[in-house]
């Protein structure tokens, strides 16, 4: 009998961590990630998880310790948000290049400044090009599910990369909803033991890891990361299928909602997908042919699946919860690149920065909005170059 409980996204991910039972958890608290590590620390204190919880002095140290632990041969999880992820950024790139299969729970929060604690995706976008996998959950259940899939994805021999499980700060991390948990034994059997090719503690087979690479080798080693993250798409799909057989919940790199016959498809990341689904139900009831393609795997970007779904549509509206001052919003830029030379008219919508709510009515209003670039919810006329 699977247990159904009322949990916040933060608590749900802490439950997943308890079940994964990582060997090492180096972490530094930051809102809105704190409930994740607070929940896990309570499990350790109660003797319900055996991991080595390392109280480090900063997120830079947390990620540095995580790299060392993961490469030494220990299953390693950390968690952060916003400024914490920014402080980690240098080491996130190193973790990807050293192929350290660290799992990181992220409670997405706007980067300063101005300082803010609420959700947007600017922190994830800051490390967009680091080479790590980034999965975005829509709700607490998905955050839990993706967290259980994450170690297998990170540690797969074709991947060996950090995997970030991103959930919208507060909207998911602090909102309680029904979450169905996998039985502990089944979760642990699914996750399995930690294995990496060259653990540093295997002194009989000593290796130097993270060596200097000059112009004669840097390009090739960076390209290895591209091959790894490309492989992560089919590996994720295989794991999601296996997880689906275990739980009845089948996840995809692109989740589709009511796209059959849809002339106008929205694209988004994270919890806004739930809001858009409600709006789509209203719009469909009013005769609008609209649907949603929600990006579950932002990196690797599911180019082929997305192109197949979106290319035949009349209009595609991409909602970004981040901007790129002086350039195109990041998700929009990715979608536009995928759809280059195809039929749809593209719209870019930037919304929700610093935690500003986006309501179903705001989404419904976008259907008849002909502007190519919209700052949804912004007070005053937008500055459009």
């Amino acid at each position, binding site marked *: 009998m699977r247990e159904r409980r009322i949990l916040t996204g933060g608590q749900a991910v802490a439950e997943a961590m308890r079940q994964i039972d990582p060997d090492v958890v180096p972490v530094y608290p930051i809102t809105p990630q704190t409930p994740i590590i607070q929940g896990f620390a309570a499990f350790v204190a109660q003797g319900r998880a055996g991991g080595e919880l390392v109280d480090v002095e900063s997120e830079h140290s947390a990620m540095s310790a995580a790299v060392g632990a993961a490469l030494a041969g220990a299953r390693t999880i950390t968690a952060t948000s916003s400024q914490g992820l920014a402080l980690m950024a240098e080491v996130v790139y190193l973790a990807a290049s050293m192929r350290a299969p660290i799992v990181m729970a992220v409670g997405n929060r706007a980067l300063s400044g101005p300082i803010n604690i609420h959700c947007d995706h600017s922190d994830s976008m800051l490390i967009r090009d680091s080479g790590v996998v980034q999965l975005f959950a829509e709700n607490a259940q998905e955050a839990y599910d993706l967290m259980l899939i994450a170690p297998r994805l990170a540690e797969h021999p074709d991947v060996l990369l950090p995997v970030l499980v991103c959930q919208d700060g507060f909207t998911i991390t602090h909102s309680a909803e029904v979450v169905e948990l996998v039985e502990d034994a089944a979760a642990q059997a699914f996750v399995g033991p930690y294995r990496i090719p060259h653990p540093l503690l295997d002194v009989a*087979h000593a290796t130097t890891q993270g*060596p200097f690479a000059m112009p004669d080798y840097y390009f090739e080693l960076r390209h290895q990361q591209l091959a790894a993250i490309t492989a992560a798409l089919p590996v994720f799909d295989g794991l999601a299928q296996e997880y689906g057989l275990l739980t009845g919940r089948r996840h995809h790199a692109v989740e589709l909602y009511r796209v059959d016959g849809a002339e106008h498809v929205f694209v988004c990341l994270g919890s806004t997908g739930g809001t858009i689904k409600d709006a789509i139900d209203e719009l469909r009831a009013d005769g609008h042919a609209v649907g949603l393609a929600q990006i579950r795997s932002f990196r690797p970007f599911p180019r082929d699946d997305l192109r197949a779904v979106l290319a035949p549509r009349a209009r595609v509206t991409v909602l970004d919860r981040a901007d790129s001052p002086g350039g195109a919003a990041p998700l929009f830029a990715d979608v536009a690149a995928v759809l280059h030379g195809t039929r749809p008219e593209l719209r870019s919508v930037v919304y929700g920065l610093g935690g500003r709510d986006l309501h179903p009515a705001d989404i419904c209003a976008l259907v008849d909005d002909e502007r190519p670039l919209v700052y949804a919810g912004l007070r005053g006329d937008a500055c459009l170059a």
Partner: protein
Amino acid sequence: MPGPLTWRELPLGGALRPEDTTRTRTGGWRTGVKPDVELERCVDCLLCWLYCPDSAIRLDGTAFAGFDYDVCKGCELCSVVCPVDAITMVPDDA
């Protein structure tokens, strides 16, 4: 490693096994000075061995046994930490 390798041939993440490293004579880019020793002064305290950032101090058991110029960079740390002034820096070509 022989020759420039492609990304498929390179070890994962650039992790190197001992046999992957063949050109180890990093002393080739020494600063221009190298340590020299007056062995009769040496008391085998091995501070030079402890402080050497590379592996340029040779040992015979627990006794000082000279320098490995193939890896010495000429940083002068050994000459600074030697408590009996047995080590001095001399020009590389001396």
